[in-house]
């Protein structure tokens, strides 16, 4: 046998509060009651009112707001700090019931909310309202001053809500544990309980939100830091648990060609670059280079500084040849300078988020990010920086942030987790040597790009910023003047070697030339001798021939008979020649 739930499964209405709808997987339970509890100044009223305002604006749903604690005018006036335009909404979509009982009201016996609910019913029908808030129910309960009556009236409200189908939010102030016990049953009665807290941790105010109960629905039960921004309350929840964002192979210049080379082509678009280093190590200058290069490419850039005013940044960077003023004028660059005002990190990141959505930059500089992370007031706040950087990554914004630290192993880097979220980490340190201080730049890591492992010297001058090689000599890294001296020495030595080589070459060339000359003499001599030999051979050869010929000629002239020799007649000539030759001697 199948058991079917008599109630349809829980559907939800979005509150429009950033982060809350994600935590609860959709918002508040529709046509059910949600209890929002917390101490004074936690943002209960803001939470409730914001839900109504968002309902009116986004979903065109009308709402009722029953104010027990403050009078309606006061609430509307207080809400003016948010960009909600309540007065306009009040005319059409939002009805405030002033249930605030002035101290002059005399209580004489038991009362109930039958009348109030009748009024609300009339108003709800008239406006076709979908949402309702009972703000500060504790005030009413205190007035009832009777546990039995309290419960009766609360159940009356709940039943009325169920009957009308309105989605209800009841806010309740809680103080000590006594109050908790007194109104404890309220938590059992409702379908969803949201707890807001405002505590002071290490002297820092910290607001948080926690969903304690949600009937018929899963929810994230963690304590989430919340911030109050111009748009209202927002959760800085941990964001999507799955890290998912588009990546690109596109590279963009750091503004320093040599550094681009060290990174084998510059920063990755949409990556997060951390520049760490001690004060004065030119972190801001590297930021300025990046910003100027970005603007040059025509990319909107936001420069957030917690150190200096905008004018000062522009002036200082001009001294090293970086010009930001034209980009500022064209609107390409926005410089936002602030002190880390309140200690609440969430507020800071909230403000930055608002800036980002207003300026819509492709490149962002935060100088220094450690100004924010140093003030971590609560464990959950430690995530704030990371969440913000995750958000920027999702938006595809390339971020350069700086961190003030002397070494690579300071707690700061690990505490904020910036070092792990950074895709590229450049560290600039001072190297003090021979009475001077020089800047050494190294790339600690760079995800997805090859990079140089070499320490380089960063030099600043009126002509600009440059990166030069450093020398290692006698086990020491040479920078600054030492490097210059070394370079001079190197050059002199090189020159000396050059001259010596040249001399040697000349000497060798001379020796070679001499040898060649000698060879020429010998060759000529050989030729002369050969000629002599030839002459000699010619002389002797013709002499003997002459003898033979002469003899024959003489014989012929004397008409002498031919010598006849015994033997073959063919050999007579050669024999005669033989004899002839012999005959000469």
């Amino acid at each position: 046998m199948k058991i079917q739930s008599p109630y349809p499964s829980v559907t939800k209405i979005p509150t429009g509060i950033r982060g809350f709808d994600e935590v609860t997987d959709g918002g508040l339970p529709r046509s059910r009651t949600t209890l929002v509890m917390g101490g004074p100044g936690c943002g209960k009223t803001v939470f409730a009112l914001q839900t109504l305002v968002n309902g009116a604006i986004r979903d065109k749903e009308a709402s009722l707001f029953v104010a027990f604690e403050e009078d309606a005018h006061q609430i509307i006036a207080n809400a003016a700090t948010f960009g909600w335009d309540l007065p306009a909404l009040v005319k059409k979509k939002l009805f405030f019931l002033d249930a605030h009982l002035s101290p002059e009201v005399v209580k004489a016996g038991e009362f109930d909310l039958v009348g109030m609910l009748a009024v609300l019913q009339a108003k709800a029908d008239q406006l076709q309202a979908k949402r309702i808030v009972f703000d500060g129910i504790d005030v009413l309960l205190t007035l009832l001053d009777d546990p039995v009556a309290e419960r009766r009236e609360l159940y009356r409200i709940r039943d009325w809500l169920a009957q009308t189908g309105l989605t209800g939010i009841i806010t309740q102030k809680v103080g000590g544990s006594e109050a908790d016990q007194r109104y404890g049953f309220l938590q059992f009665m409702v379908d969803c309980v949201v707890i807001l807290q405002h505590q002071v941790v290490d002297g820092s105010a910290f607001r948080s939100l926690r969903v304690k109960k949600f009937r018929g629905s899963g929810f994230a039960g963690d304590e989430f830091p919340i911030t109050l921004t111009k748009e209202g309350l927002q959760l800085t929840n941990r964001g999507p648990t799955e890290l998912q964002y588009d990546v690109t192979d596109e590279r963009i210049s750091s503004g320093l060609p040599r550094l681009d080379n060290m990174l084998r082509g510059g920063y990755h678009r949409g990556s997060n670059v951390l520049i760490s280093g001690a004060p004065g190590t030119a972190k801001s200058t590297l930021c300025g280079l990046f910003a100027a290069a970005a603007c040059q490419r025509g990319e909107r850039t936001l420069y957030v500084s917690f150190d200096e005013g905008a004018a000062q940044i522009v002036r200082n960077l001009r001294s090293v040849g970086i010009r930001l003023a034209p980009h500022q004028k064209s609107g390409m660059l926005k410089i936002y300078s602030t002190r880390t005002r309140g200690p609440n990190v969430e507020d800071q990141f909230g403000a930055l988020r608002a800036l980002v959505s207003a300026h819509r930059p492709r490149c962002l500089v935060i100088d220094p990010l450690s100004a924010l992370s140093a003030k971590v007031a609560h464990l959950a706040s430690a995530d704030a920086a990371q969440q913000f950087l995750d958000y920027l990554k999702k938006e595809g914004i390339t971020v350069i942030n700086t961190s003030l630290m002397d070494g690579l192993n300071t707690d700061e880097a690990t505490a904020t987790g910036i070092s792990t979220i950074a895709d590229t980490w450049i560290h600039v340190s001072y190297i003090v040597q021979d009475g001077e201080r020089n800047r050494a730049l190294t790339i600690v890591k760079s995800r997805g790009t090859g990079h140089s492992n070499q320490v380089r010297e960063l030099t600043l001058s009126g002509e600009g910023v440059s990166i030069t090689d450093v020398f290692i000599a006698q086990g020491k890294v040479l920078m600054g003047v030492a490097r210059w001296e070394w370079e001079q020495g190197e050059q002199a030595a090189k020159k000396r070697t050059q001259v010596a080589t040249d001399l040697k070459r000349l000497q060798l060339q001379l020796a070679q030339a001499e040898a060649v000359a000698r060879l020429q003499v010998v060759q000529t001599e050989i030729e002369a001798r050969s000629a002599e030999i030839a002459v000699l051979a010619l002389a002797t050869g013709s002499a003997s021939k002459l003898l033979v010929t002469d003899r024959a000629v003489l014989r012929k002239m004397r008409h002498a008979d031919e010598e006849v020799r015994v033997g073959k007649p063919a050999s007579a000539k050669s024999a005669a020649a033989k004899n002839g030759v012999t005959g000469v001697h």
Partner: protein
Amino acid sequence: MGKAKTSKAGLVLRLYVAGSAPNSLSAIANAKAICAEHFSSGHELEIVDLLEYPLRALADGVVVTPTLLRLSPLPVRKVIGNLSDAKQVLLALAGK
């Protein structure tokens, strides 16, 4: 609920009730009793059923029931509850 008898006396009261809710019924009874006992010389008591005229209650700033308003003499006084605490009611109605 009808209108209470009119009189030239300065005391003008309006009692908001919610139908026949127990508190409302006892408030009507209590109000009438107190008036009869202490303001017999002259008073005006109007009883309004909020379930019938919710918007009227709204205009009068009445949210809980029962609520007794002293409209005259001024300033307007507001007493909430079923008026079982006659002493409190009298203090409120008599005060200036």
